[in-house]
């Protein structure tokens, strides 16, 4: 239990860790989305390319935008960018640092989708089966051009009637899948090398400015959180005072209208405090009615001075 609480608090306190967590979750979500998505190539000449490339590129755009939306820091960065300078100068290096870290995290899920798509191969087979050179294949010898296009377009649909008798569709599938997987692995390799170089070479060049930028971007984030918490605390105290003031003013009104002598009883003082002089059904009803029809003004300066 303690361990869990510590882990929870650690993640909460460090907003970068939270962002990394969200980034990882989004990457897992993209894999899950791909596996649960029912890919069905239309197997029609013009539609194949649009469908295949659409499935390969539109979900990454969606995942990228989701990565930006879910990242709290993007709002903080935008506010910092658009705020008037006032008495605090704006440091463009900090804004650039925040922007680049947000973009890097948002790019992870789209890249995962593209790589998984390429390694699986269905998209590329669907999109480019019509572009394979038919002369290299055996079963397409005595067929006209239009029919060749149609046959090639049907290659991704294995259980189509025309395809069942044609053995070349396996060759086309294997060929395209080989290209797709090669592309997928190459992209993965290039990206990992780029990330590795960026992480290793960065300290050689700009370590001091990097430390500054990171510190101040962390600071802006924490300042924003604390401001929101302070506003919440303040509004709670404000509401508390406002309500107490309201009860007291009701109590005074009742004292004015009633003819009771001041009570001097020492007993039940604790309870009397809580009752605040309202000891009657009618008084309670009046108080509740007043609360709805005439809410007290948002001004607790008098109550504060008492």
């Amino acid at each position, binding site marked *: 239990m303690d361990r869990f*609480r510590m882990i929870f608090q650690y993640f909460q306190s460090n907003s970068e860790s939270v962002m990394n967590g969200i980034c990882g979750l989004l990457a897992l979500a993209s894999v899950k989305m791909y596996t649960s998505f029912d890919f069905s190539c*239309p197997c029609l000449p013009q539609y194949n390319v649009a469908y295949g490339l659409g499935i390969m590129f539109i979900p990454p755009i*969606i995942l990228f935008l989701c990565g930006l939306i879910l990242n709290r820091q993007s709002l903080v960065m935008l506010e910092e960018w658009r705020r008037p300078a006032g008495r605090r100068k704006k440091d463009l290096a900090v804004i650039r640092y925040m922007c680049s870290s947000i973009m890097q995290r948002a790019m992870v899920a789209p890249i995962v989708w593209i790589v998984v798509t390429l390694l699986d191969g269905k998209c590329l087979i669907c999109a480019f089966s019509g572009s394979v050179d038919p002369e290299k294949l055996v079963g397409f010898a005595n067929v006209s051009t239009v029919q060749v296009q149609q046959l090639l377009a049907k290659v991704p*649909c294995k259980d189509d009637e025309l395809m069942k008798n044609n053995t070349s569709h396996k060759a086309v599938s294997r060929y395209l899948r080989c290209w797709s997987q090669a592309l997928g692995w190459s992209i993965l390799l290039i990206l990992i090398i780029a990330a590795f170089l960026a992480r290793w070479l960065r300290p050689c060049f700009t370590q001091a400015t990097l430390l500054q930028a990171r510190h101040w971007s962390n600071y802006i984030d924490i300042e924003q959180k604390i401001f929101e918490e302070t506003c919440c605390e303040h509004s709670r105290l404000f509401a508390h005072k406002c*309500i107490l003031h309201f009860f007291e003013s009701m109590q005074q009104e009742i004292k004015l209208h009633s003819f009771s002598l001041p009570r001097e009883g020492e007993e039940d003082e604790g309870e009397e405090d809580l*009752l605040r002089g309202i000891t009657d059904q*009618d008084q309670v009803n009046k108080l509740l009615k007043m609360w709805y029809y005439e809410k007290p003004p948002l001004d607790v300066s008098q109550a504060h001075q008492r």
Partner: protein
Amino acid sequence: MDKFRMIFQFFQSNQESFMNGICGIMALASTQMYSAFDFNCPCLPHYNLAYGLGILLVPPFILFLLGFVLNNNISMLAEEWRRPQGQRGKDPSVLRYMFCSMAQRAMIAPAVWVSVTLLDGKCITCAFCTSVPVETLGNASHSRLSQGEIQRILARIPCKEIYNGQQLIANEVAVRYLRCISQALGWCFVLLMTTLAFLVRSLRPCFSQAAFLKSRYWSHYIDIERKLFDETCAEHARSFAKVCIQQFFEGMSTDLVAARCHLPRKAPANAGEAAEKLLGITDQGTMNRALKSWHRCKPPLHLHPPALPTGNGWVGEGQPPTHPSVPRRETAAYYSWV
């Protein structure tokens, strides 16, 4: 159990997190509902469109309304909107902020339903199977069927077992075509929604940040004030009830003393708290009478103040003139601690 309680407390403390949690649960519930729903296309020419579009559009509407119903803040918004102005002005930007944030959260589950439905493809296949372009995909000129016959055959596309138009257009070809269109629509819908959300979220800091901070603070304030007022009223009600019941028991025991002409039994000095808590009722008959009296004639909702500790008890209590006359069983209007 502790872990669950901590997670619950975390969500509760931050009102917005709590609302986000409900929103996420409803989105999951909508996907679960869709997968549990047994889609049954009627496969008849005019019914297909109605059924397909109905399944596509009616549940999102229900989920949208449910999103509003499950949101606690809807009553707060209605109250703030309808209250008389009184001594506190009304700020329309606060009302707009509250409404917008509720509407945004309520839109998520319907959007999830529509996207899942479109990406799955069954609804669009059912609704638009009669509009498949037979000329390009099949052999329209081959058959000599009338238009109505063709429509009836095409309407059976989603039901593979009874489909008899294999010469007109192959079932798989039509299903693949319709599903491709449906999935394209689905992804475009998701892209559109995500772009809108992104624009709404990122354009706000560029234009109206100060007004936004103000609206957010005051809408939080209204929420907290309402909760604190409810808590204060509950505290007050508890004290009211406690004093009312105490006075009831005291009144009972005084009555009995007066009726039986017994001297009030002073609790011995070393009796302790237990004797005090007995409130003067110390035998079965008295207790039974107290219980019967509580049921038959509850005391009025009016607490009388305790009399002064000196011997001079003053007659008449400080009753506000607006107190209605309630028939009371106890005739003694005052009592003194002798």
